[in-house]
């Protein structure tokens, strides 16, 4: 299988297998596809007007438009598919002292909230993008890596996001990518346009946790670009920023953290939101198979708000 349709379709097929066989173990062989089957999965968060999750929905409660064409939801799952989380921390400025400790605590608490079948991996980036730990359920190496993180240099945020979105994850697992960053970028080779197109082809959900209102400073080591040409969120509300649009494209969001910096609570919220999503399965019908497909997900309940990826790319 080779092609840009694979991320969504492969995941859909795997989920279909789970649905058919119950909670299939992760080590099951990857499913195959019948020719012409355009199976698609969509994660959808459904909340009421107060922001609380709406549970107990069935496939019949959902409406899905694929390129504007109504589709039949074949099935759904809720909270049963194992999760792979990639936590990416921006260490281009000084995440030392209290902030580093808060991050360490937030990530380790996040790991304790994971279910036995869930996993987490840690990525650090400044201008260099490095995977510090592979997928693991062991808190210790993650904790140690954050403790010893060295900050400095420029920032290749867009490159890091692109790498995190492209990086492989087994298709039978849901994938969440969480970036802790101030949104600065000075060293990326990836343009915004390119990253948007990459996001359309990604199967992961991308969420940004962004410190707001704090002093961001840099230290010059002679190699990295100081933050004078950086692209920062500035006065734009995070959700309305370009990053907000990028995150929404994947079904994710931007969560600002204020001066109080309750990082633990914020990370926990990210996980809970992701976990509380419905995974919808449908087979695209009545649409051209290739190219970019827009997706619109609705719920037949008054006041229900749906957060889902906006589309997918198929060959």
């Amino acid at each position, binding site marked *: 299988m*080779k*092609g*840009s349709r*694979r*991320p969504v379709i492969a995941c859909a097929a795997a989920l279909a297998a789970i649905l058919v066989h119950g909670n299939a173990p992760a080590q099951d062989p990857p499913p195959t596809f019948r020719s012409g089957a355009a199976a698609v999965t969509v994660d959808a968060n459904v909340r009421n007007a107060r922001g609380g999750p709406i549970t107990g929905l069935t496939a019949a409660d959902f409406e899905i438009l694929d390129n504007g064409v109504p589709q039949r939801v074949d099935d759904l799952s809720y909270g049963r598919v194992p999760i792979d989380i990639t936590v990416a921390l921006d260490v281009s400025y000084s995440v030392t002292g209290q902030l580093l400790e808060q991050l360490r605590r937030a990530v380790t608490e996040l790991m304790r909230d994971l279910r036995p079948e869930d996993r987490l991996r840690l*990525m650090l980036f400044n*201008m*260099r*993008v*490095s*995977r510090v730990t592979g997928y693991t359920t062991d808190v210790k190496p993650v904790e140690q890596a954050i403790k010893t993180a060295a900050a400095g240099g*420029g920032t*290749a945020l867009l*490159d890091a996001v*692109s*790498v995190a979105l*492209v*990086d*492989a994850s087994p298709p039978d697992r849901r994938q969440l990518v969480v970036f802790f960053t101030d949104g600065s970028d*000075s*060293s*990326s*080779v*990836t343009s*915004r346009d*390119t990253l948007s*197109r*990459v996001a359309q*082809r990604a199967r992961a959900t991308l969420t940004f946790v962004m410190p707001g209102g704090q002093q961001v*400073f*840099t230290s*010059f080591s*002679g*190699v*990295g*670009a*100081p933050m*004078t*040409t*950086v*692209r*920062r*969120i*500035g*006065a*734009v509300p995070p959700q309305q*920023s*370009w990053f907000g649009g990028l995150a929404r494209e994947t079904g994710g969001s931007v969560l600002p953290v204020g001066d109080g910096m309750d990082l633990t609570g914020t990370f926990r919220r990210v996980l809970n939101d992701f976990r509380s999503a419905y995974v919808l399965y449908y087979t695209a019908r009545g649409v051209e198979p290739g190219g970019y497909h827009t997706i619109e997900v609705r719920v037949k309940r008054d006041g229900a708000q749906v957060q889902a990826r906006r589309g997918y790319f198929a*060959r």
Partner: protein
Amino acid sequence: VRALAALAIVASSLAIVAHEPRAQQPPAPPPQQTFRTGTDVVFVDVSVRENGKPVPGLTPDDFVLTDNGVRQRIEHVEATAVPIDLTLVMDVSGNPSSPWMTTKPAAQALAAIQRELDDVTAQLRPEDRVRVIAIDRYTQLLVPFSPPGAARLPKTVEHDGLSALHDTLAAALMHPVEPSRRHVVVARTKGLDTVSAVDASALRGIAEQADALFHIVMMESAMDADMALRGFQCQNMGLCFPTRRFWVPHQRRLFGGGLSHLLTPDGEAVAAGAEATGGALHKTQVILEPTMGRTFRRAFEDFRSSYVLRYTPTGVPRAGWHTIDVRVPGSRRYTVRARRGYGVDVEAPVVPTAKPASLDTLAGLVSAYGEGRYRDVVDALRGAKQPDRLLREFDEGGNPWPAEPRREAVFALELAETPAFSRTAAERERAHALLQRFAQLIRHPLEPDGFELRWHFAVLTLLEGTLRPNDAEAFVSRALARFPNEPRFLLSKAILADQRTVRSPERGAPPPPADAQSPEALFLEAAKHPPTEPEARIRLGFWLHRAGRQADALSQLDAGGATRDSMLLYLRELFRGHVLAALERQDEAADAYRTALSIVPASQAARVALMNTLLLQGDREGAEALAEQVQAESSRDLDPWWVYWQGQLRFQQAAMAALRQMVTP
């Protein structure tokens, strides 16, 4: 004032010599011309001749010596056989009134020096040492003190420029003499000075206090040639002497014009200084012009046949100037020559031996820098908690190396580096103000020189790296005013213009200056020069790509220009990839990124760009493999793309190293 300044220098140098033994606490310092409380011993060279021939066999009782008019008891007399330190001062300056004339090659000037050096060293003993100093616009130490057989001239010498005669002679005379050696200075000169800070009366004062035997040899043939040339220029070419150039503050002559070569008042002052040391000014005798070899031979013979009198001053105040008078009452026919006096500095308090100063303080940094601990200083400055405070102290404290303004200018650059990158505007402004001040101070009075060129380059590489193009603009303008065709400065101007085009999506780009030129025009200007053509075209290509002119961009990148700089080769392929991707030629773009990766195998940027391209082409496996490689890359090598926007910052360390080398004694 000049005389005072020069004397202050002499005094301080003598004070250093005088106090050195105390600070070092040596076991038993050998006899020397230093003055310790109560037991100061003075040595005096005395030449006694009768009808030009040395008088041998004299004893202490034959001499009468007074110190400030008070007769002293001569403790010891010996015929001297101590080793000699010989300083040869060669005048290689040209005729400043005829700068349009073809100058002779450096090899020719060096050959003339070599002949005189050979002539002199043939007379030296193995235990003697010789050094060679040349007079031109600068005081050039051609050969440091070396044994006679090991004196080697450098491959080049600056010559045929203006003359810093007085400064060079002062520097030669101020050499501190080792106690067991004697110092002889023989200078051969046309007597013309144009650019010295030290004037003739100050030089006389320096000579009187110097512990050296000082001989001056007049280059009368050269003087006559100069005079004849000037006459020809005035009568036949309308270029009448003095042909002063505006930057020449004055011209001073030691010797008058005409056939008799009468001494000017300046010449008389310097001759008096030479005589005060026991030396002389040597003129043509009948038709025989003096040479260095013959002059030294005479001085050497004087030395070999002279007496060294030793006495401990008594009955006179210790500090201040001591006039010495030596006579040999036994015969009126004797000609007695001896130094006329010596100076004792006011005793300074004993400074206890201190621990090495902390590099947290300016004093500590200055001290370490003076010792050549550049790496330590740079590290300390980059980690300084209050770089602004160091700048302020430096501003207020004056030059820590009064005799080395260039070292101060390089140190100022070191100090300015960290504040130049500060996020605090006040700190950056102080750094810029310091650099602006030194940009004025380093200006060579006559014409831009190599040091100034390198200093400006180091400043520009630094400021390009701060990514504040508007702040750096004034510096590049100043550099180009001094060096209008320097390719690296032209490229710097283009880079700054390019930096101004970098837009933050939310904040916009910094407003350009009113007279800002387009980066395109500036890059094309820099591309006219072979040294900067490749980089200028690559940067122009990337600029055109960002401007949406992909065909023009590809043309510039392909035109390129020959280079073996792997960074430039890498960037060229990386940008070709971007341009080809924008032209929807994805396969070619991927190939360009692969080529870039082959040049810099650890490159993250090329790998990520290739990853994105493959993903957008539908090759997910290929993209995933590259994503894995990006995160697993263990090389700590710098991706050239990461410093692309910082212009020529990559040269900054080398530029600073070159400057440090230039100011290292």
